[in-house]
């Protein structure tokens, strides 16, 4: 059917084209570049190898957990419980290791507990029908409560060498956690683009009714996405356990906002239907660079928080504007 007449408006003017180009590329590309230039001008300590690897190492667990969040978010859900969930896995596994447990059992345990807690979140949303925002907020508090009950103010530390290697080791000059994080992003990207898992995350987040009508088991897949998120939280917990060489009651407090912020900054839509795994990497690096720059410029933790908060709101605002324009005319 020939429909060119309806398809396109008149040729856009130049500034609209340039704007579209910037917009279609990742929303972060420009600010990230500007930021790096400004910071390297402000400080001669920024572009050192040590500093760059510090930044990357700091982003690792956020990337690992963010990839899971990107799937959940693409399917139009959210998981706020990731910080507490990670702390709970760390408390259980850390205590087990502290008492002389075997490394491979500890690793399996971290992944299994993470997966299990993720599935619990998923079932609360799909079987009980509790909106994800509230279900996972409830679990944020619940898991944290369990951590506090379990550790009761104590800290467990001194883990076997292999665990600290996961968090602190290097291969050549590259930190092991960075290798793990980039592998997770790469696998996440393959799953997103080439498998049914990614396809159904998009379909469910984009038009849940259409997905249901097409015979997709929407509840099952939503649960799978939460389970996948949990599995990656388990992996992140192992890496963080190694990085800190400790587990304590307040580990991972506020992690969820950092994770969600980076995922949104990277270009994954908060409203579902579109995700990007390499965007997660980019988003987390942006936040880390910003934090690092603020530290080098002498700003304290509170100012860092102010900047992170503002950045998140702006990122969501940019997305909302774009989403309205792109999807506005074609409902459903």
């Amino acid at each position, binding site marked *: *059917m*020939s*429909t*060119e007449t*309806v*398809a396109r408006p008149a040729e856009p003017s130049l500034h609209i084209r340039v704007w579209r180009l910037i917009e279609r590329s990742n929303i972060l590309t420009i600010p990230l570049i500007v930021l790096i230039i400004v910071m390297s001008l402000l400080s001669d300590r920024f572009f050192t190898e040590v500093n760059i690897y510090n930044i990357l190492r700091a982003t690792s667990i956020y990337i690992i957990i963010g990839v899971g969040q990107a799937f959940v978010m693409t399917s139009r859900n959210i998981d706020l419980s990731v910080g507490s969930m990670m702390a709970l896995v760390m408390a259980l596994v850390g205590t087990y290791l502290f008492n002389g447990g075997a490394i491979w059992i500890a690793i399996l345990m971290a992944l299994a507990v993470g997966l299990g807690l993720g599935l619990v979140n998923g079932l609360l949303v799909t079987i009980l029908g509790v909106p994800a925002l509230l279900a996972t907020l409830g679990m944020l508090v619940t898991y944290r409560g369990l951590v506090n009950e379990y550790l009761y103010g104590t800290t467990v530390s001194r883990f076997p060498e292999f665990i600290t290697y996961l968090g602190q080791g290097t291969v050549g000059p590259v930190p092991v956690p960075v290798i793990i994080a980039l592998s997770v992003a790469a696998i996440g990207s393959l*799953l997103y683009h*080439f*498998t*049914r*898992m990614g*396809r159904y995350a*998009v*379909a469910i*987040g*984009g*038009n849940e*009714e*259409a*997905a*249901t*009508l*097409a*015979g*997709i088991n929407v509840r099952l897949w939503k649960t799978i996405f939460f389970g996948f998120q949990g599995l990656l939280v388990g992996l992140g917990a192992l890496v963080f356990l190694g990085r800190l060489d400790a587990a304590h009651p307040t580990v991972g407090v506020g992690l969820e906002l950092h994770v969600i912020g980076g995922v949104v900054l990277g270009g994954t839509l908060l409203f579902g*239907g*579109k995700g990007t795994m390499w965007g997660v990497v980019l988003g987390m690096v942006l936040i880390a660079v910003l934090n690092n720059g603020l530290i080098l410029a002498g700003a304290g933790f509170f100012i860092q928080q102010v900047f992170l908060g503002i950045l998140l709101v702006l990122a969501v605002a940019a997305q909302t504007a774009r989403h309205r324009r*792109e*999807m506005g005319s*074609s*409902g*459903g």
Partner: protein
Amino acid sequence: MNGKSMATQPAAAEAPRSGTTPVLEVRDISKNFEAVRALDGVSVAVHPGEVLGLVGDNGAGKSTLIKIISGVYQPDEGEILMDGRTLAMSTPHEARERGIETVYQHLALVNQLRVDGNLYLGREPNRFGFLGDLFQILDTPLMKAKTKEVMARLHIRIPGLESEPVHRMSGGQRQAAAIARAVHWGSKLLLLDEPTAALGAEQSAEVQRIIRRTCDSGIPAIVISHNLEHVFQVCDRIVVLRLGRKVLDCRADATSPDEVVAYITGSRGAVGHA
């Protein structure tokens, strides 16, 4: 045939093609949504190769009837028969497995996916053998190629077919994609809820040609439309619903647009039922 006498006795008008078994038949279907009686004892039969036009005012129950046949809703009363045998469908998936394909009033496309993604939604083939089955790796090249084939066969031309998600397409192109999906998979019956609603004159004509061609190959269709001109151009038989009841069921060449309008608005036919 006399449309008026059929209207006052809808049950007696049931066999315009006596002799052939209907591909699909609904008998005495009723459906309530809380206080609203959306369908009230409706019986309709569709025969091989027939295009049935389903018309009626807003809220008459047309979409509800379509959704019952496509497995989205369960009827409160009545039965559905396919090839003369009783069917129980509790999900749209079951209807689709039996070859019943639907273009819903709101299209049911995933805007973020391309046409091929939508055409194969829920039925994606895997590739790379065992590994592909394990990780559910989509056979995108196959889906793209088949989609191109289907679109060519139906003479649907969409610029950016292979690269653009459907939210970048016009209403007509999206409609065409939804229809292509139904025609591609439908082996038994097509259900089209206002397939020309978003379309200009030329595209409506093209959609009607597609429907006609599909039905001439033996697959019947039920088409909902508010455009009586289209209905009379493409349909063999016309059923009018009014306030959830069937008030007219007759061959298209045995009635006229004026008469159909009279049944739609209730100036004819309703009294006998009240």
